[in-house]
């Protein structure tokens, strides 16, 4: 027999001056293989059409449905109710602007940091239609894709103590994104350029090594390892004149990006 699940859901409509933040309770019969995607849609369609939340691919690929599930940020679509207790508490992700109930504005936030860290390949080359593609080692392509797998769901940001305390912290996701460009030979930026972008407390030095980003990442991206690579590179860049180059080159991830 299925359980009866109790959902405690955060409700607040910031566009409505009469709305006050509060928790609302719904109950639902559990069905086999039920995910929070199925459950929330059932609640909206059958019990409360005013409930707001975001889903898109419902397959854990697009990153739309990040929310705080029983205290931990995660993707609702790939959370099975079978893995949760009878009582399920849902909050919107903190840090991001609340749009309504469980729906937050991750889009604006990610566009902002994307611009800030200049999340694109910097090259002076021009594309030549007639030339064959530049060669790349397959292993390197795989490594780049490993870091490119981030779906920008915002869970790591919501789980980050620094991000909770400091509005301007760019979060593990952004530093991971930059790490992706750091190892990409097509990006012609040097260590000093990266240093300019993230060499302060809103960037890589804001990270206090709390590891929650790593622990909640639905894609299991080794975020802290990337933070480590970038922090080492930027720190060594900051003491360029103090530490001899041969030591620096040993310690950084991509020595050919040192200048």
């Amino acid at each position, binding site marked *: 027999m299925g359980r009866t699940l109790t959902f405690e859901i955060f409700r607040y409509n910031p566009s409505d001056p009469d709305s006050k933040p509060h928790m609302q309770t719904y109950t639902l019969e559990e069905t086999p293989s039920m995910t929070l995607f199925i459950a929330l849609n059932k609640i909206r369609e059958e019990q409360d059409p005013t409930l707001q939340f975001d889903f898109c691919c419902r397959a854990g690929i*697009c990153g739309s449905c990040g929310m705080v599930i029983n205290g931990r940020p995660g993707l609702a679509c790939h959370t099975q109710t079978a893995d949760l207790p009878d009582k399920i508490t849902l909050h919107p992700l903190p840090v991001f602007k609340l749009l309504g109930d469980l729906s937050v504005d991750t889009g604006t936030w990610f566009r902002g940091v994307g611009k800030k860290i200049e999340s694109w390949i910097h090259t002076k080359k021009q594309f030549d239609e007639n030339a*064959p593609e530049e060669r790349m080692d397959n292993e390197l392509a795989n490594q780049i894709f490993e870091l490119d797998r981030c779906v920008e769901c915002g869970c790591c940001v919501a789980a980050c103590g620094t991000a909770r305390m400091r509005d301007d912290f760019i979060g593990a996701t952004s530093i991971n994104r930059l790490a992706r460009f750091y190892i990409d030979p097509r990006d012609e930026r040097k260590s000093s350029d990266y240093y300019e972008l993230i060499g302060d407390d809103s960037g890589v030095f804001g990270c206090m090594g709390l590891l929650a980003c790593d622990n909640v990442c639905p894609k299991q991206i080794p975020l802290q390892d990337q933070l480590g690579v970038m922090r080492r590179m930027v720190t060594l860049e900051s003491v360029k004149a103090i530490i001899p180059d041969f030591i620096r080159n040993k310690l950084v991830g991509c020595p050919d990006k040192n200048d």
Partner: protein
Amino acid sequence: MQIHYCDVLSVGAGLAGERVAVEAAQAGYKVICLSIVPPRRSHSSAAQGGMQAALGNSIMGDGDSPEIHFNDTVKGSDWGCDQEVARIFAEQAPIAMREMAFMGVPWNRVVPGEHTYYKGGKPFQATEKKENEGLIHSRAFGGTAKWRTCYTSDGTGHAVLFTLDNRMLELGVQVHDRMQAEALIHDGERCMGVIARNLRTGELEAYIANATLIATGGFGRLYRATTNAVICDGGGQIIAQDTGIVPLGNMEAVQFHPTGTVPTDILVTEGCRGDGGTLLDVNEYRFMPDYEPEKAELASRDVVSRRMTEHMRKGFGVKSPYGDHLWLDIRHLGEKHITTNLREVYDICRHFLGVNPIHQLIPVRPTQHYSMGGVRVNKDGHAYGLKGLFAAGEAACWDMHGFNRLGGNSLAETVVAGRVVGKKVVEFLQGDSMVYKADAMRDALRGVEQRIENLKKGTGDDCYTLRNEMQDAMMEYVGIFRNGKDLQKGVDKLQEILERTKNMRLAGKGQRGQDAEMAMALRVPGMVRLALTIAYGALQRTESRGAHAREDFPERNDRDWLKRTLATWKPGDSLPTLTYEEATPFFILPPGDRGYGGGKIIDGPDIPAEKLVSFAEKKEAQGA
């Protein structure tokens, strides 16, 4: 009301929309993209497998050429495609892939030396050439003569989308997310932009543009079981059809994917079968070679889907509370292969099904997957009937897919068509001056406002009830196997639902700010009209071609049906008006046997010599 001005407005910010936007922005034009979700969440990101392009770097793709790619595409389309467009596509695809590599896509590359691959569950050896080391690699996909599908692990759509969106950031293209386009602004001749509803605030906003692009993807959500994201509700096709002028092409051509998982309908990639996954029945017997001795699991999608349905109807399906299904077996590929090359598949199985594909079978069944039809455009991507309106990607019927598209061709289409159409949009802008008519905008605005007011006054069913009934009708009557009787039932049922949408009510009474119910309610009548367009087009098409399989007309009929359905919806009508046009302006590959799928063909008259051209001949379309 807020009014935004730009040179190019893209409705949709998936791969096709962004590729066009990038092209126009590179030419110096001001571009705005509208998107229901932040652009990186577009459904393009969910495409796992890859993009077909005849680069011929891998040993199994050795000797490949655009012409062979073209031939595969035409055969795949069951001769329903526009061969001129298919040629443009096949020729441009390799350039488009290299360009994406230049922009930053981490394509998988050729590793020289011997490697093992699986075909039909058996291991084979192949040796990659040393001189091709580091060039873009390719994998096998169904319905192709060569290994041609460029890929990045199994997150190709994601990787390409992120790369394009990075380029958008670099070029400073504005993206207005959480905007839902509700109506095109036009005067019957010229498109001038859209009226969109801001999903954050619920306010209507006007976008005035010289060129408007529809790139909203498919309409899978017309079906209950679909691999498509929840945003794939046909929004672009709806606003085009609502003009009463712009025709939708071949809407009855709807593809089902053989391997949607049960019960969540999440797609597992064709790469599973390409890499050697097999399909098993209730007795864990591999049945596909019995039906398709040559290609087995790698026949084109329509064929595999139908064979699966056929086999389940014979009673070999696996019973489950969610209906019958079959098994996909990838266990023999090994842990390393499954957790790297097929990791998304692994994740989906673990997180959504509670199945470990390294040791267990994956429950699958054919599930709605792709819409070949869409806003009918010419080879430049310019919509029929309205100047200044373009469409690209799945939303469009550019028509390189005809009645069935090959795996890897749709994702490739997004960037190839995006590139081609983008250049044509730029050409259009160069020879054009801004047309803006205030009353056209007012009319469009008033229309949307009226719909919102009506919803607030409605007393009938709510939008979810009506949508669900429509989805069930589509599954039941307009699915994989079709027949006249059921299609007629479907049309009747959908007409009844359409009538009921006129008195649709808001169960939540409408609220300020974000209101998901209102967004859905505004969509439902258009969705039902699209559903009717599909059902009615399918009813009229008395043949079987590609994905359109009629039990009562099992033959492909080249004599009467070598043509494309064009459907317009005149205001106030309860059915679309169907007209037909030639499938292709000329033939490079005259109609013949696909080499898989079986089935009889009713031959048409011989193709006149002036309509036959060779692949290399750069002949302009006859009479086009």
